[in-house]
């Protein structure tokens, strides 16, 4: 693609992605009273992050083994509330060690 087309593609990506973020916020004014909708929105973040994590975590690593162990140790570390950065660092270290030396 020439430079002009690339820039048009990038701009389309920027506009579409940000409209998706902003439109619901403009449509929803104030607190939602419907119990089902409130419950649904309560579960959405956890479900979507869980779905995006598995099985992708074992598919991005060089071997499924390193991803699987990073997932298990990561779950344990996160369960113990180690925080964002420590858990991420532990997962990276495990994958690096297993992929390099096993």
């Amino acid at each position, binding site marked *: 693609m020439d430079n002009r087309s690339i820039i048009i593609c990038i701009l389309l990506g920027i506009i579409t992605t940000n409209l998706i973020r902003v439109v*619901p916020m*403009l449509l929803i004014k104030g607190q939602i009273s419907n119990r089902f909708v409130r419950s649904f929105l*309560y*579960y959405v973040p956890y*479900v979507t992050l869980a779905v995006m994590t*598995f099985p992708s975590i074992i598919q*991005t690593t060089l071997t499924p083994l390193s991803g699987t162990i990073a*997932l298990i140790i990561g779950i344990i570390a996160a369960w113990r509330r180690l925080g964002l950065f420590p858990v991420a660092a532990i*997962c990276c270290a495990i994958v690096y060690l297993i992929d390099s030396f096993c």
Partner: protein
Amino acid sequence: MHPETVMRRKEIMQGFRDGIPIALGYFAVAFSLGIIAKQAGLSAVIGFVSSFFTRASAGEYGVYTLVAAQAAYAEIVAMCLVVNLRYMLMSAALSQKIAPGTSWLHRVLMASCVTDEIFGISIARQPYCPPAYTYSAALISTLFWASGCAAGIVAGGMLPANIVAALSVALYGMFLAIIMPPARSDRNVLYAVVASFVLSGLCAVAPVVSGWSSGTRTIVLTILISAVAAWLKPIKSVEAHG
């Protein structure tokens, strides 16, 4: 100093602190994204601008692969809509975490800050999320995200594959750190998370469904599992006047 200014300063510092681990993870992920962007023909400057304003890992990945494949403009828009549909749900959820009376401009700006992680830390604030907190966390992490993409375009080919693979799981580690503590304190969240893992794993190998893009699977599973969870285990209505 005005007490409100002191509060805001505290929120900015807190957002900055929580934003740093996200920023480091972003740098690593954006770096691997930059390698793909380079293959699509993006310069480091365009990659920086694109990542700064788009801020969507799967969305950008889709755009760059489509650019590399010389796809039509309509395909770019359609792909962004589908892959980023979860932001619509997140933005709707975030709207419930903004204090009543917050200005229209703050709502729009907070919505445009939504990424998986910024959303994750923003909804964790109780009872409402202060705008300044979201802005500072979003700013620091976005700068690292955009720089990581530019660095990947410039230096991507130089890193060995095992280091790139190790860096790419940083994002998933962060996701786990966001979902596990609430799953520990709320049994219903735990059930929803376990169901998500199991169904997502099954869908990746099941016939037909496994042929869908991972973005499509994410949307379908998110809506399905969250709806069933909301139906079976509705949250207790805290403020019953509505």
